[in-house]
């Protein structure tokens, strides 16, 4: 007789630090430049916006199943986890530390709308520095993994950062993309994307579509323990920065464009990929979903 399963604790509803504490080994997290040091944005007061003592991101070290890791967690409750000067510099500093120190990995708990427009230039530059530091850490042999399951998803420049990880785990409710639905509706009009069509928004950006596309590696329940298990399992996979691997990725992405470029909706794309009953995918629980898409998935090498 097996023990009853532990009750689910929502990853999505948890704050940034609670997520970190649950993903890392109990009691192992030690924050770097924590809120007591009050390192905050100098740019928000002029806009009459409150600052946060951590600028919306916690960074530090800990262990994951006994292995030393560096980790960061973005706080969606503060300006949508958006990247400003200080927020970005904390992430870049952590990734530079990783390249030097060679931990078993870096775990990024991503929850961000992208560049913080209130400090736009510094935010864009910060994302650019994160990208360079992340890829330098990977080139130095340190795997970087991303978890996406927060309320803000992973958008804008952080959507590029997320896909530069060695591995990504998403919940169905986690969202990943470049231009978010609100941005597209505001810029291109409601005919292009109607944000009130929630089902469409989930089809486009949600974890299930990202799994079929090959943009996400693992689909997990909205559960802290499930994300912890996913992070540990992703630490073992590498997407090495070699000419051979990147040529394979190029071929896979060109194949995606050729095969799906004329699809009008993700449902058409799922059908083109060979899913038998594509319209039913959004309704399926993770296990039957993964079975239904097993042969249709197009992992990017």
């Amino acid at each position, binding site marked *: 007789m097996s023990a009853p399963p532990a009750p689910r604790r929502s990853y999505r509803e948890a704050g940034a630090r609670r997520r970190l504490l649950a993903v890392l080994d109990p009691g192992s997290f030690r924050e770097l430049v924590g809120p007591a040091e009050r390192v905050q944005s100098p740019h928000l007061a002029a806009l009459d916006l409150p600052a946060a003592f951590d600028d919306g991101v916690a960074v530090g070290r800990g262990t994951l199943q006994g292995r030393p890791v560096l980790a960061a967690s973005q706080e969606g409750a503060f300006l949508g986890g958006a990247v400003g000067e200080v927020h970005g510099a904390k992430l870049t500093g952590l990734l530079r530390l990783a390249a030097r120190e060679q931990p078993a990995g870096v775990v990024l708990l991503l929850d961000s709308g992208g560049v913080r*427009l209130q400090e736009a230039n*510094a935010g864009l530059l910060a994302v650019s520095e994160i990208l360079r530091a992340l890829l330098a850490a990977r080139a130095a042999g340190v795997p970087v993994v991303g978890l996406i399951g927060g309320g803000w998803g992973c958008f804008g420049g952080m959507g590029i950062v997320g896909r530069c990880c060695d591995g990504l785990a998403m919940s169905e409710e986690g969202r990943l993309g470049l231009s978010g639905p609100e941005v597209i509706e505001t810029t291109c009009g409601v005919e292009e994307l109607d944000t009130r069509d929630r089902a469409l928004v989930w089809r*486009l950006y949600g974890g299930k579509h990202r799994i079929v596309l090959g943009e996400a590696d693992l689909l997990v329940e909205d559960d802290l323990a499930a994300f912890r298990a996913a992070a540990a399992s992703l630490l073992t996979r590498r997407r090495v920065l070699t000419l051979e691997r990147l040529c394979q990725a190029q071929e896979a992405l060109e194949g995606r464009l050729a095969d799906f470029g004329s699809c009008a909706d993700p449902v058409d794309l799922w059908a083109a990929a060979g899913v038998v009953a594509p319209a039913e995918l959004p309704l399926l629980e993770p296990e039957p979903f993964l079975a239904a898409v097993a042969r249709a998935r197009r992992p990017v090498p």
Partner: protein
Amino acid sequence: MNLDELLQGLFPSGHDVRVEGAIASGTGRLPGLEVAVLGAVGGAEVGVAEALRLAAGVLRVVRDHPGRPLLFPVDTRGQRMARREEMLGLNGALAHLAECVELARQRGHRTLGLVHGEAVSGGVLPLGFMADEVHAVPGARPAVMNLRAMARVTKIPLPRLEELSRASAVLTPGLESFVATGAIASVWQAPLDAALAAALARPGGPDRRMALGAARGGRTLAQRVAARVEEEGT
């Protein structure tokens, strides 16, 4: 500055750069050195198709011309915003492009970004801003978004934003701000071929943009905060 003028200035000995569907690619000649040229130009939007053509271009240079320097001219109004692009995973295509540039760097290619027109967000992040150094020519217009759109998204009234942005390099669009924050290392004046040769003669080295922003006073905290994370962690 338009692309033809730029290329004539950079390569007085000649070049074979062609533009097809907003992607410029080819080779420029400097005395004793060939330079691969690759970029989204003409104010182009970068979508999945453009990102993959650019990535293929980087991979081709890495495979066929080991060590050849890469110059990325930049004139892009940003990522293509569309439902179809998101459905096809534009963020992933841009990430792949950024990885290709990192591969080139790891294999000893010098990389330079050169902004001669617009340089907006998702159009410049995975290529131009991934380079070892980013420079510009006079008249370049780097930005995240214009103040009018920013006012709409942040719900800060436009007159207030205009007033605030006059005092802040982190908020104001434009070349001056991007130089002050360290995003752009320098603005090249004629003769451009000399500026290019001098940049290529320098070693690649680490990302120096935080130090530049601190020294120029346009972005004072980033350098200190990143260093503090590294120090506390050591």
